[in-house]
């Protein structure tokens, strides 16, 4: 038997396989394919204080082994989430983790406050790394100071475990990670999407309505694994690893690099069953390698390396 449960600080996950914010709706879109409570956690689509209609189409473009998206945090706003969506998912036997965003620090706090009182919420993921909004988002995650500020203020208004989601579009992700840790983050999500752009050579214009978009999918995996490797060695809080996971081998790679749990995003689209396959694959890998606790994979590649 392999113990598949992991703890991200005070947050208990029954297994380390979760689905990434923005790729799994509010948790029910894929229910025809499998019961969502098999997952360790569900990170919801980004939620803001007020409703956002998102960016104009087109919002998607396929690139080699990746996709560009410019959704722009379309969501009904935190109140509607609490009223209409949360009741449908709060009793699922999995950790529900709303992903929250704001144009100002104040907005992050208001959203966090509103969610704080609600039953069925396991933690909050603070998105300081969305590349698709004009204000806030990635701007907060691009430098340690602003990142500190968001985390510090949200930390004040809620006792929920806070998972801070970092942007890969920085020179030094470790400094942002440390800033978030210092201000009381319980865990870090590494990484959000890479800022990218594509041009349609027939129209001779950017393909996305919002011009730039976020790159995700297998293409970004080597960058994501590198950042998990760097961040997990520099901080003491656990890291949720993501970016291009498309099979259990990728998930194991992230855990060996230092992730305590993994998040599957883009790969849900071509293969809605991927999360279950990853879960099974990790467990089997542990068995074959005589590992009795999945947590022992975390950081194995650097913990045991001779330098």
């Amino acid at each position, binding site marked *: 038997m392999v113990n598949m449960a992991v703890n991200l600080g005070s947050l208990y996950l029954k297994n380390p396989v979760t689905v990434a914010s923005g790729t799994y709706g509010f948790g029910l879109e894929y*229910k025809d*394919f499998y019961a969502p409570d098999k997952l360790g956690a569900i990170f919801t689509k980004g939620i803001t204080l007020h409703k956002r209609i998102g960016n104009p189409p*087109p919002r*998607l*473009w396929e690139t080699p*082994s990746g996709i560009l998206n410019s959704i722009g945090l*379309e969501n009904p706003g935190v109140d509607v989430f609490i009223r209409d969506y949360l009741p449908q998912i709060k009793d699922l036997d999995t950790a529900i983790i709303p992903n929250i965003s704001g144009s100002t620090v104040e907005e992050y706090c208001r959203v966090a406050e509103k969610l704080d009182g609600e039953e069925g919420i396991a933690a909050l993921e603070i998105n300081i790394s969305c590349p698709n909004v004009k204000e806030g988002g990635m701007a907060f995650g691009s430098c340690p100071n602003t990142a500190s500020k968001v985390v510090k203020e949200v930390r004040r208004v809620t006792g929920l475990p806070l998972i801070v989601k970092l942007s890969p579009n920085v020179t030094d992700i470790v400094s942002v990670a440390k800033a978030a840790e210092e201000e009381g983050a319980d865990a870090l999500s590494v990484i959000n999407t890479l800022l990218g752009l594509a041009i349609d050579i027939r129209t001779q214009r950017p393909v996305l309505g919002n011009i730039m978009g976020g790159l995700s999918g297998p293409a970004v995996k080597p960058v994501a694994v590198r950042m998990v490797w760097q961040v997990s060695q520099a901080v003491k809080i656990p890291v949720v690893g993501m970016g291009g996971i498309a099979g259990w081998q990728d998930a194991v790679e992230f855990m060996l690099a230092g992730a305590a749990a993994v998040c599957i995003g*883009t790969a*849900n689209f071509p293969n809605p069953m991927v999360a279950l396959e990853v879960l099974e694959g990790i467990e089997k890998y542990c068995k074959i390698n005589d590992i009795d606790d999945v947590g022992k994979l975390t950081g194995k590649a650097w913990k045991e390396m001779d330098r």
Partner: protein
Amino acid sequence: MYKKMYIEEGKISYQYYLGNGQFLMEVFSPQVAGRALPGQFVHIACGPALSTDPLLRRPISIHRINKEQGSIEIYYLVVGKGTELLGMKSAGDNISIMGPLGRGFALEQKAKKAVLVGGGMGIAPLLALAQELAKEGKEVVSVLGAASGAGLARAGAFLAYGKLIEATEDGSRGLKGRVTDHLEASILGNDTLVYACGPLAMLRAVAEMTGKMGVPCQVSLEARMACGVGACLGCTCVSTAEGAYPKVCKDGPVFWTSEVSL
């Protein structure tokens, strides 16, 4: 929980090349076929499972539904990586299909007459619709157009369900001109409902014409898709209502012209 979408390893029973880059493929996929409705689509993994390029599935309309046999037909044009890989498959090969997806054409409507307007590959979803409408006892008129005769390879199949008007831009088959040049006569009179699928310019023209004439009209739209199930919020079109972006995969692909701004 009520199951309505499936992922199924479909077995290709045949794949015919129809010329000009067009293929007709039948896939044995009893679960998808069992629930499919005209206007819905399937999401197909076109490349080998172990390759991540192309990464996403490709949305393709259900061209014909054979529930007894448990199969669907698709009719598609090779335009890029995904469809090119699909075209390389042969009878006996398996392909992973997800579906049936989306909201199909409105059925069991009051109107006694249905005019189906298809341009180019927009013809694809209309065959299943024609069949279903004929079953409902409607009078079906199919007005199908293409750049040239080669694009009307599937038009003949519509004859089984009603009247057929063919139009080609180069006049190589049927009437010369665009479908919209030959539409007005067919949609005159009451009790008519128009269903259209084709290039955006055609849909705009049909929407304008039906709008002026007060004839209700449904259009089937396209957008780049990732998930196909409403999870990624990527495949937006623009609502006629202020500040809303309906999702083509879930709210559509079929919309009333009153719902979307084309």
